[in-house]
């Protein structure tokens, strides 16, 4: 059965390694923070100027001067630090953040990503996404494998305006875990109960399948 958003977040959380600084995008990526494996120390970076971001505040303890990049009220953990936007993107551009998790509308087999603009619709802007994808050494995309019409979003080539080129390293969808290699999407894991055939059917980009493909383990 295909994963729900929480399933995708849980699977991505398994990728976290001790000592990593992590930037989580809006949407599914944000949920990853709820499933950090035990014994692992992670610090979350919010590009509006926080390292060591904590959970939402308790009711009545919200501070208008303490929000995350999604404009939500948050808290600080002990050991947190605050800085300006220029230093924040110095961290990102300078590759001090080990992992970026973000959503996408489309990903292509060479690692291009499109997630900021649909021609003809209101464009809200790229925010920090272009800086993040152009700089991060390790980018995991969290997304649905297909759109509402059932069309693949895992493509040979992106059709939408790009956010970044040749940058995505891994994609975790409701159906599968895919690694972006120089030869195309390598199928790493299947969602529980999802067959390789279903994944092939849902994938337009080049899919590399070698040997038995294990199911995700939670």
């Amino acid at each position, binding site marked *: 059965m295909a994963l729900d958003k929480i399933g995708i977040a849980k699977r991505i959380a398994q990728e976290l390694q001790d000592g990593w600084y992590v930037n989580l995008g809006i949407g599914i990526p944000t949920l990853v923070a709820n499933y950090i494996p035990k014994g692992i120390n992670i610090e979350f970076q919010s590009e509006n100027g926080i390292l060591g971001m904590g959970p939402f505040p308790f009711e009545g303890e*919200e*501070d208008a001067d303490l*929000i995350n990049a999604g404009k939500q009220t948050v808290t600080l953990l002990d050991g947190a630090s605050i800085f300006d936007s220029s230093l924040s993107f110095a961290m990102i551009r300078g590759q001090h953040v080990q992992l970026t998790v973000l959503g996408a509308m489309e990903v292509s087999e060479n690692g291009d990503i499109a997630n900021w603009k649909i021609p003809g619709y209101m464009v809200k802007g790229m925010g920090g996404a272009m800086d993040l994808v152009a700089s991060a050494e390790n980018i995991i995309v969290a997304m649905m494998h297909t759109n509402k019409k059932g069309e693949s979003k895992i493509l040979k080539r992106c059709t939408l305006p790009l956010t970044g080129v040749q940058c995505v390293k891994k994609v975790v969808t409701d159906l599968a875990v895919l690694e972006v290699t120089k030869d195309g999407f390598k199928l790493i894991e299947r969602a529980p109960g999802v067959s390789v055939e279903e994944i092939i059917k849902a994938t337009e980009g080049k899919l590399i399948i070698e040997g038995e493909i294990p199911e995700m383990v939670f």
Partner: protein
Amino acid sequence: MINKTVNNVQEALTGVKDGMTLMLGGFGLCGIPENCITELVKLEVKNLTCISNNAGVDDFGLGLLLKKKQIKKMISSYVGENDEFERQMLSGELQVDLIPQGTLAERCRAAGAGIPAFFTPAGYGTEVAEGKETREFNGKMHILEHAFQADFAFVKAWKGDTAGNLIFKGTARNFNPMMAMAGKITIAEVEELVKVGELDPNEIHTPGIFVQRIFQGKDYEKRIEQRTVRQKS
């Protein structure tokens, strides 16, 4: 010490004229120069180019200037919370220049730091790079970006002293320090204006040299855009 104090927001905004380029600090509604925005509305200055990470919401922040059609062009990274903005943009009344957030921040800093241009990887291979010089460094492609120029910068700080030194609180810091550096004239409004000597020189975020005018702000609403909380368990 040099005294940067002016009596009120009216005095602070002396010289702001139609057609100018303004920088406004803040991220979302956090750390925005509320008093200055209100006064810009009262002044009815028009054809403004505004450099600000976001464009406010319909009834607060830069949304107030949009509603009065005072803005000709917005230079921002994300503008998604504002219906009037959307209407003006889609109708072509409003020019919009969307810029990666880190590039926006760095172009402000560059303006203040006398760096006319710098290379960044952000936006390479996208429409952001169109018409821009590209170059490879260490096996990676970059694009050349230029410093902004702004007639006025409006910033909002938590505490400030009469010499113009500023301290920000929490994530209300965001773009304010770089914009303070970048304005030909920088105006700081503060929640608490204190005498020189009351702020620790070691803890100042923006040294007074970057601030031309400072005043005690009032009636801060500090609206929260997304009030998210958890329950005590």
